[in-house]
């Protein structure tokens, strides 16, 4: 487990988005895992921010994140300059389970906004293994599409939906997902805004296993504070599970939505 000082190698900003590359000692990770990331500043902000791994390279000691400005913490990370120090703790959490993908057919990867990075990482793994899959990205508008370069570099043609029709198909990502399921997708992997995940879970329920990467406010990221829980129902029993430890990836079937 890396608990390390890292140095910003580059920070490429595009509007509220930033692709941040840091260098340091990097432990091997799997798609869906994340780091708790914090700048080298005072006690405000105090806590790290959970960021999914977009890609990493332990042999080169390199780690990449895609960040969107949300509040104060992400704004401060967005402003990091090359050479500055950051603290990052990870890789954390359970990755996307791969078992169901073995069954043949094209797994569907469904991402929206800052939920796209872990799916890009998953796509990279699938691509490396020579598996085919479909990649669906939904956004409100054209400017909110992310990681298009990374996907192009992997040779992935994402099926894009935008709510305003400014790019790709007009509408929600559930439309192409429905088609993908009908085409026999053996499993769905999704990460994105709550509304999207809820719709994906509803669509998949009873038809195809879905694995959803959830977001929750986190203090520690490694299981000790019990701050990040979500209600889940397993075998009829409801309990709180930690997004940072039992998740962030949960089976769509077990998640109890607010």
């Amino acid at each position, binding site marked *: *487990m890396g*608990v390390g000082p890292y140095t910003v190698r580059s920070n490429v900003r595009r509007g509220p988005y930033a692709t941040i590359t840091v260098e340091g000692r990097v432990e091997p990770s799997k798609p869906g895992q994340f780091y*708790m990331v*914090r700048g080298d500043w005072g*006690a*405000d*902000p*105090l*806590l*790290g921010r959970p960021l999914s791994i977009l890609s990493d390279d332990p042999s080169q000691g390199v780690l990449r994140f895609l960040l969107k400005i949300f509040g104060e*913490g992400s704004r401060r990370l967005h402003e990091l300059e090359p050479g500055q120090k950051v*603290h990052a*703790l990870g890789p954390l959490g359970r990755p996307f389970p791969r078992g169901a993908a073995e069954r043949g057919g094209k797994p569907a990867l469904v991402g929206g906004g800052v939920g796209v990075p872990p799916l890009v990482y998953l796509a990279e793994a699938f691509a490396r293994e020579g598996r085919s899959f479909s990649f669906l990205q939904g956004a409100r508008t054209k400017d909110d599409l992310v990681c298009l370069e990374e996907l192009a570099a992997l040779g992935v043609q994402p099926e894009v939906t935008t709510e305003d029709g400014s790019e790709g198909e007009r509408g929600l990502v559930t439309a192409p997902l429905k088609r993908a399921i009908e085409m026999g997708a053996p499993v769905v992997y999704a990460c994105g805004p709550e509304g999207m995940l809820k719709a994906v879970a509803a669509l998949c329920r009873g038809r195809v296993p879905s694995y959803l990467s959830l977001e*929750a*406010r*986190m*203090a*520690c*990221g*490694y*299981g*000790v*504070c*019990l*701050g*990040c*829980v*979500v*209600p889940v129902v397993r075998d009829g029993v409801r*309990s*709180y599970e930690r997004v940072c*430890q039992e998740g962030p990836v949960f089976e769509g079937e077990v998640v109890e939505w607010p």
Partner: protein
Amino acid sequence: MAVEMAVTLGSLRLKNPVMLASGCCGYGLDMESYLDLNRLGGACLKGLSVAGSEGNPPPRIWETQGGMINAIGLQNVGTRRFIEEKAPRLRGYDTAFVANFYGHTVEEYVEAARQLDAEPCLAALEMNISCPNIQEGGIHFGTDPAMVHAVTKACREVMRKPLWVKLSPNASDVVAVARAAEEAGADALTCINTMPAMAIDVERREFRIWNKIGGLSGPALRPIAIRIVYQVSRAVKIPVVGIGGVATANDAIEFLLAGAKAVQVGTALFADPQCPYSILDGIEAYCERHGFLSVEALIGQIKDPGPRPGCHE
């Protein structure tokens, strides 16, 4: 020069003065990937009750400037399951595990104390009194010296292990509460628990925390905690354990100089689970630099000019 790092709290010897705080290290086990618990003075485990608790619904945490608010709702597996499932895995360690426990009635406290007292892996029990007393209309135990006396005494009577009482900062006269706990037989006092606090999401006009009110912890709290450790350690004879916003060696030394025999690290673990190591190294280096042969020699060694009756503003 080798600095003697061990400290003695009554009958209990800690190999050094740095412990993990309750609620910030789970049942100790979750820290294993980051910390060698055997290098620490000890660890206070997540608060336990006889019945256990599923905790509050989310959202449970919110970050504030220099601190955070939590209302976990004391989620815990209950004393029984703790003893059956968790404790066996703690038995191999050579460090002081302290079980933190609570109840909503004196009887619940006593029963938790009785059960945990029998568990061999525990070096002491720490009583969390920042809970509502449902028999007394929900007044928090910790704000009332009489209730603190009663619950401390009742637990002390059924126990053999050292009993630590963890004080709430939310008391008009925290010294009176401290004295009540001492008189009732507490073996040490932990100062302090979190301060009741609230934050609001102005865009949604909603509480940031499901429970509306949560506990403020972190560096924001430290100046309050230092003040209370100073006041309490001068007023009682039993040892005081300092807690609230410790993140660096300097923070810990502030507590020791103010009069604490040991410190606990809570919120700071979240941002850096390995900060106890640098705290330990820093305390040792400080002792060397200032010619203290032992941590014990440092405790309470603030140069005190005597009473200062001036106003706070």
